[in-house]
């Protein structure tokens, strides 16, 4: 089980536990505001945008090329932006904190 915290734009901290699936699914199944996942997680829509604080970036790794391209459609893009449908949950993510971008 990995404990993952989403920080919403209203600065609400919501900690959830999961062992598999994508961060996007975890967020949408728990009603995290600002994470929509309109394309269902196939990296086609850029509606699951999060910022990963530097201290956690090693856990999630870098965005792929497609992901970086697609991120350009979203507002608030930063170097630490990820589309969280592309982040798979594993034990290694335990303690991860991500900030909802929009």
């Amino acid at each position, binding site marked *: 089980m990995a404990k993952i915290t989403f920080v919403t734009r209203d600065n609400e901290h919501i900690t959830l536990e999961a062992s598999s*699936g994508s961060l996007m699914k975890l967020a949408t*199944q728990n009603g995290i505001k600002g994470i929509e996942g309109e394309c269902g997680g*196939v990296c086609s829509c850029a509606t699951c945008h999060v910022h990963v604080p530097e201290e956690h970036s090693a856990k999630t790794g870098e965005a792929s090329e497609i992901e970086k*391209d*697609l991120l350009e*459609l979203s507002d608030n893009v930063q170097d630490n932006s990820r589309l969280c449908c592309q982040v798979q949950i594993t034990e290694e993510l335990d303690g991860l904190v991500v900030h909802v971008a929009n």
Partner: protein
Amino acid sequence: MSTIESKDKRCVVVGASQAGVTFAFALRSEGWEGEIILLDSDTNLPYYRPPLSKAVLTGAESIDDHILKPLSLYERENISLKLGCTVKSINKADKKIILRDDSSISYDKLVLATGSRPIIPKIKNIDETPKLYTLRTAEDVKKISSALANSKQKRVVLIGGGYVGLETAASLKKLGASVTVLEKEDRVLARVTAPEMSQYFESLHTENGVNIHTNKNVNAFEVNNESTSVVCQDGSTFEADIVIIGVGVFVNKELAEAAGLEISNGIKVDSSTKTSDDSIYAIGDCTNHYNALYDRHIRLESIQNANDQAKVAAAVICGKEANYNALPWFWSDQFDVKLQMVGLYKGANEVLIRDDDGENHKFSVWYFKDDTLLAVDAVNNTKAYVMGTKFIKGGNKINKAHLVDTSVDFKPANILAKD
């Protein structure tokens, strides 16, 4: 807080799929304090449909992975979800809906998100043909999967070469089926894309072992002991263990029509998603709406349209100003190819292809009406999709010579025309 008093009001939503569910949650987050009742005749917890013809059909994912919202979220947001509940009629004079058991539910605002259903063409013996399916619901996928698992020869004939048909063909091929697609027009995807893309997808499927036949108008089924002969108008015959029909959809407009709402290729709505009745709104596949960007009325079968109209309806019902003026976008995944589409290509008089790496299935098709970019289809090329989206939204002019010249670095500064 909503800008109108909603505490003692009731909003009833007919249809709990993409549009209806998105709407119900959006209405709550826009500040609606009254009741929200969401009805559907389906008994399944509402799910997300796009993976049905893709990862769910191949078995890579289950429909349980694609529930739109878990039950706990409906409870948390105080959305009353009534499944297995069929609406018989709308009484707009008394502002109530009548259910199949003749009970009624009154409403202050009614939202129709009734969607669409597969067209079942009038083909001789269609009602007597066993193992004949459509692909629209989770039930349909279960039936197809089970029929395929129980079939020795696994010969599948798909009637209709649209996106759902082609996605289904790709998925069934992965499952080891022998797949034939019969398309009535002279090319696949004839209703939805330009000849260049049709040609690409025909080759892609052919390379992957799918038999594609165009100009095939099926006019009869002959049911044999173990299989079905699919007979075309030109006399050709295809043997099938399983037949899948994917020839488009009918709008579920009957409730609206019987209630006297204005209908025109779907339920007619204005830019605020309101129908011809002030208390009734309609969203998603079932609507015919005005698109300001393309200056015409359109009907779209897409997730984007369902979600965006749902959000507009929620804002408007909460008393806010909102207009639907979204740029349509779509996607499709077939074999290992990712197609992303933005805009509507109809009306184009020039089609340009940027061939970044065509041999490796990476290119994009750009549709223009004179100097106006109308649409982009991007194959394994998210960069093109993103640029296309920005350029169409921005109304930008394109340097067409640079666009098709792959020695020019593919970035906005190079592709945009200089004033």
